[in-house]
């Protein structure tokens, strides 16, 4: 039976470093992703993610499972990201479509759907991804963190509220404002998606009628 994150952390506290390795493998990708979208730079995101894991390890002696492990870890990550941006230590780079040449999980840098394979489709997909990334990154810090945790980490409201240290009610309003901004910013992509989905819906309806 798989051990919970809290149990793994308690095992680390008891001196079992192999449990820390399991936590590292489990959370390195979501953490680097989250931080990359927070600070807009791969190298800075990896530096901060290393710092998060180091702080988790250092805190093992005093660890008490008062909150979910992910709430605790992502709170550290969020604070580090916000402080990093405020300190101006991150490298303010133009958003690049260049991804790391070699990835730890062996996954492709861009996961392009196979529906229309080919270089043209890949270029379109990259262009769309770039537009989305810019829109997400232009959100105010707290709204961006809320969207990243809600949409990409799929966390519950209470957990995100715990990380951002606000009420659930305030979080829901924050998310609404963030998605409303993105809806306007990405209106063309939303319309494209609507157009892409309508023929399928119509054909499905046709199939159902026939």
């Amino acid at each position, binding site marked *: 039976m798989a051990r919970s994150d809290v149990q793994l952390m308690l095992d680390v506290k008891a001196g079992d470093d192999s449990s*820390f390795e399991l936590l590292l493998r489990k959370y390195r990708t979501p953490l680097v992703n989250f931080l990359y979208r927070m600070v807009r730079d*791969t190298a800075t995101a990896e530096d901060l993610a290393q710092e998060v894991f180091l702080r988790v390890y250092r805190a093992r002696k005093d660890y008490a499972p008062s909150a979910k492990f992910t709430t605790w870890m992502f709170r550290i990550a969020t604070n580090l990201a916000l402080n990093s941006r405020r300190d101006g230590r991150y490298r303010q780079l133009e958003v690049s479509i260049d991804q790391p040449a070699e990835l730890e999980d062996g996954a492709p840098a861009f996961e392009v759907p196979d529906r229309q394979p080919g270089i043209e489709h890949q270029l379109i997909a990259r262009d769309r991804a770039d537009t*989305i990334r810019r829109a997400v990154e232009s959100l105010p810090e707290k709204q961006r963190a809320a969207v990243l945790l809600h949409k*990409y980490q799929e966390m519950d409201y209470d957990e995100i509220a715990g990380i951002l240290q606000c009420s659930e009610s305030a979080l829901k309003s924050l998310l609404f404002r963030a*998605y*409303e901004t993105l809806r306007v910013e990405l209106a063309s992509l939303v319309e494209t998606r609507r157009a892409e989905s309508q023929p399928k819906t119509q054909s499905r309806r046709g199939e159902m009628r026939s």
Partner: protein
Amino acid sequence: MNCEQLQEILVAYLDIKATPAERRQVEAHLAECAACRGRAEEFQLLWGVLDELPAVPPSAAFSAAVRARVAQEPRRASFWNWVRPSPRLAFAGTALVVLSLWLSSSVPPARQQVATAQQGSEAEFRMIKDLPVLEDYDVLADFDALSDLSAPPQAGSELERPQM
């Protein structure tokens, strides 16, 4: 429910995390408000658009870098580490024993001197304390009038008995 009140519940409704009461309120509002209905639909399309953002896995060196930094952290001492002294501690202990032996071998003469000095000063103190008695003894020994006195009465004589 109005459009403003919907804002706080809409995301939870689309996440299918609204309470049954909230769901009924939202659906009642969406049925009569085309603007909110359109927004709700576009939110769902937007979430599909956001899914197109690719994940950025960590670089190949990431985990190794974390492990290297963690390896530099001080480890908590295990039971055997606690039982088995470190070389530094062993050296310090040995040095302490050697120092104690050396000190103990050089201490007795000093202690004897101190003891002798203490004994001498105690004898002098007693002599000074008894000095008045000694002086009285010399005076009494040379006091001629005392020799004229008769011998003291023997113990148990009538004279010593109290008169009833």
